[in-house]
């Protein structure tokens, strides 16, 4: 019996102790006609680890490495070997939420360090122990802003059109159940940015918050100072959505405008988490100290034990569902502990200069790639705004068709903007520190062939 240790003798001894004859007797409180509704024939016969591993290895092989320039919210980065060799140690991998603090100081201290790292990276006061991912994190931030903005009575939030459309849609799917509306601020078609001009029409209206994405979905860098100041001047909180790698180079949200953003969320995947088909990643979430009691999710505090020794513990639990139930800040319980642990190790290994260097290479490589591609006939940059490590290009042909042809050559040449923005000929491309000059040239050569 895979993973079940009991021998026939064990079973007899246990049944004897219970005073039952057969295991089946233990289910005698279940109405008989409900039982055995199926013999589970849709399931295959059990197989050993060897066979299942071989099957899965064959399937993994099917999806094997193609040369990829896909970004759109998940990015290829070098992951130091130490990150997952340590994160998958049984002590981290097979522990649960640190309910018994004395027997969980390892996990608790990791989270406290993680909170500190995220707060420092974002320039904020405090951070929680992670939420599911960047997109659902945005939904939590929107709901949090509604609670935190005491001046506003609105259930509306302003969201830029240039926000990652997958964030927009997941956020909407979550918050609309509480009748929260997300109103869209269009982007400037020339710059690929969200201009304060386009916000003027919302002046005087009651919105709880403005969402600012830096960079935005197009890779463009927004004028975050102006946007932040505008929002604050109009009684809104600012929710920043940021790429954590970029923060090694860019102004952290805590320093945006004159007062800084109020809530920061983002996708943690670039911090040491493999692409892995989209998960498990983790969403990070930080805020100003004054909003901490509105923040959802686990929060770890440093305290002392009864001998005065430093220790770490779950705190502010009165916000959480297991204590507050229907009055909780969120229903979140299990979050993304292991991914967050890996990210903590990653951030410690990469360090401030290392992260800046990674971000620098991402930026420089993407610039180089864009330069090489736009040297091809008919390929040009779609927007004028400066970019971080992603850029939109116009092709002389239908984007979906071109991408499909590139995929046949095992090159994943970017994401089409056709469906999300109606830009039929536009692709979003990304390069990071993992791409060599040779990789870029392979892409360009393939593109040239496809366009020819």
């Amino acid at each position, binding site marked *: 019996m895979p993973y079940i240790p009991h021998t026939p003798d064990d079973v007899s001894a246990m049944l004897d102790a219970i005073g039952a004859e057969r295991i089946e007797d233990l289910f005698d409180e279940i109405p008989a006609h409900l039982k055995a*509704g199926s013999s589970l024939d849709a399931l295959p016969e059990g197989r050993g680890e060897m066979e299942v591993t071989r099957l899965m290895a064959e399937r993994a092989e099917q*999806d094997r490495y193609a040369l990829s320039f896909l970004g759109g919210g998940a990015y290829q980065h070098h992951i130091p070997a130490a990150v997952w060799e340590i994160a998958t140690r049984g002590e981290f991998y097979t522990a649960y939420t640190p309910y018994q603090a004395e027997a969980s100081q390892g996990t608790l201290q990791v989270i406290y360090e993680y909170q500190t*790292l995220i707060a420092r990276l974002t320039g904020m006061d405090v951070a929680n122990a992670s939420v599911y991912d960047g997109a659902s994190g945005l939904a939590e931030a929107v709901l949090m802003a509604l609670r935190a903005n005491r001046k506003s009575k609105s259930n509306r939030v302003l969201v830029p059109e240039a926000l990652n459309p997958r964030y927009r849609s997941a956020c909407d799917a979550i918050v609309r159940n509480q009748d929260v509306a997300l109103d869209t601020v269009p982007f400037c078609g020339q710059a690929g940015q969200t201009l304060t001009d386009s916000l003027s029409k919302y002046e005087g209206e009651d919105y709880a918050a403005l969402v600012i994405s830096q960079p935005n979905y197009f890779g463009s860098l927004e004028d975050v*100072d102006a946007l932040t100041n505008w929002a604050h001047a109009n009684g809104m909180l600012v929710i920043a959505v940021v790429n954590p790698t970029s923060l090694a180079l860019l102004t952290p949200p805590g320093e945006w405008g004159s007062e800084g953003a109020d809530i920061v969320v983002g996708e943690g995947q670039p911090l040491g988490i493999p692409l892995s088909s989209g998960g498990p990643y983790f969403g990070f979430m930080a805020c100003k100290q004054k909003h901490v009691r509105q923040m959802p999710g686990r929060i770890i505090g440093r305290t*002392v*034990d009864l*001998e005065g020794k430093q220790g770490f513990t779950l705190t502010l639990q009165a916000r959480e*569902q297991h204590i507050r139930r229907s009055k909780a800040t969120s*229903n979140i319980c299990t979050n993304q502990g292991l991914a967050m642990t890996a990210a903590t190790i990653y951030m410690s290994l990469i360090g401030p200069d290392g992260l800046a260097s990674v971000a620098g290479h991402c930026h420089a490589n993407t610039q180089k790639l864009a330069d090489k591609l736009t040297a091809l006939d008919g390929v040009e940059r779609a927007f004028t705004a400066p970019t971080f490590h992603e850029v939109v290009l116009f092709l002389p042909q239908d984007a979906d068709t071109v991408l499909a042809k590139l995929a046949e050559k095992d090159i994943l040449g970017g994401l089409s903007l056709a469906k999300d923005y109606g830009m039929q000929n536009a692709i979003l491309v990304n390069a990071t520190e993992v791409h060599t000059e040779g990789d870029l040239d392979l892409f360009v050569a393939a593109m040239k062939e496809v366009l020819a």
Partner: protein
Amino acid sequence: NETKLIFQHSRPGRSANAQAPKPVSEDQLSAIPASLRRKQKPGLPEVSELDVVRHYTNLSSKNFAIDKQFYPLGSCTMKYNPRGANRAAMLPGFLARHPLAPASHSQGYLACLYDLQNFLKEVTGMKGVSLAPMAGAQGEFAGVAMIRAYHDARNDDGRTEILIPEAAHGTNPATAVMCGYKVREVPVGKDGDVDLEALKQACGPQTAGLMMTNPSTCGVFERQIEAIAKTVHDAGGLLYYDGANLNAILGKVRPGDMGFDVIHMNLHKTFATPHGGGGPGAGPVGVSQRLLPYLPTPMAGLDEESGEYNWIDTDTLPTSIGHLSAFMGNAGVLLRAYFYAMVLGREGMIRVGEYSTLAANYLLKRLQQVGYTAAYPERRASHEFILTLAKEAKELNVTAMDVAKRLLDYNQHAPTTYFPLLVPECLLIEPTETESKEAMDDFIAAMEAILHEAKTDPDMVKEAPFTQPVRRLDDVKAARELDLTWSE
């Protein structure tokens, strides 16, 4: 031994510099306006690779874990997490796949998802499954949002309430509120079953649905489940099954057959994926026929003709409640669950419910024999059971929390404490099917010893633990003098 914080190892200019590329020149960053550039380095620690490896290796040793201890945390199903599942999910081909890679470059991954969807449908008796939710609570959210979408689609808009038994997990009421519902609690009787009369009175045209766990958090199977289902359905509400305790009945009775309309499963419980110190989990949802149109996307589909797998997304299922995350859920967790399901197979699934129930009933009986009090002594245990220490608290001034802390000194993880709230001084204990009789006997011996200590040397119990990295912590100070980030 107090472990320094990683920041306390930091020295300006130190680095693990096999890990970062060489710096780029300022020139290469000239396209980024100076006004958008960070003025100061972010305060990440500046440490060597050995510093990092040693620090986190040492920190890890300050955890209890399934790989080291018996971990009978009730309602958490801390069963063995197969190492083979980890290896399979970490295969380079799976790790390198971008979530937005085209279907042509995703057939292997999609095949795993498609199979897993079908397995989960079969074991739960539901008509459709989506793997998208990233945790149990998000699965609950998806479930209640589907209930809402169902009523909305029928323009049945007076349904503003979700009914929840008072023993429910806190996520249930919190989820109902996140979906815009009011919560009405339903009392539970002395035998652990729902008070059916009270339920009948609570039901009405305002009832959107009922959320419940079965076996309940009282550790017993809800015997009136059919009557409950009929009551709620008759009132026009739907039934939500919280899959936290699915382990107890896997292969024995299926939520779909009990009359539930929508369920979530916790793969990090029932399907043995790791708990990771607090996640990631995965909370797939299954639905009955009438909720099929609302399942969250994306799901894996199969074109029978071409034999190719594809994504079912909002363009093909526009009635869906939509995406709950940027991509498609916790893929790596799903792969681990798929591995587990494949190893167990049909017979293995059936054994899960049987042996987890056998273990719990054995442990309960033996703990009663050594002197503990069952909360529901007339009932069969499911895969877990509740002890109440009300008597000990009153007579010996030793609480459930004291016993929990003292267990740590015996190298046993504590059970869940003070949940469900309706049982005073309770311990909720779940051994799972993967622990040997010997491991349970060691736990029983520790519990017996502690009861003896409580009577002869209560301070030993009340001041425990003594052997852990820290003694009991000052939680009041933690909440009053918030210290959530470190500063020099």
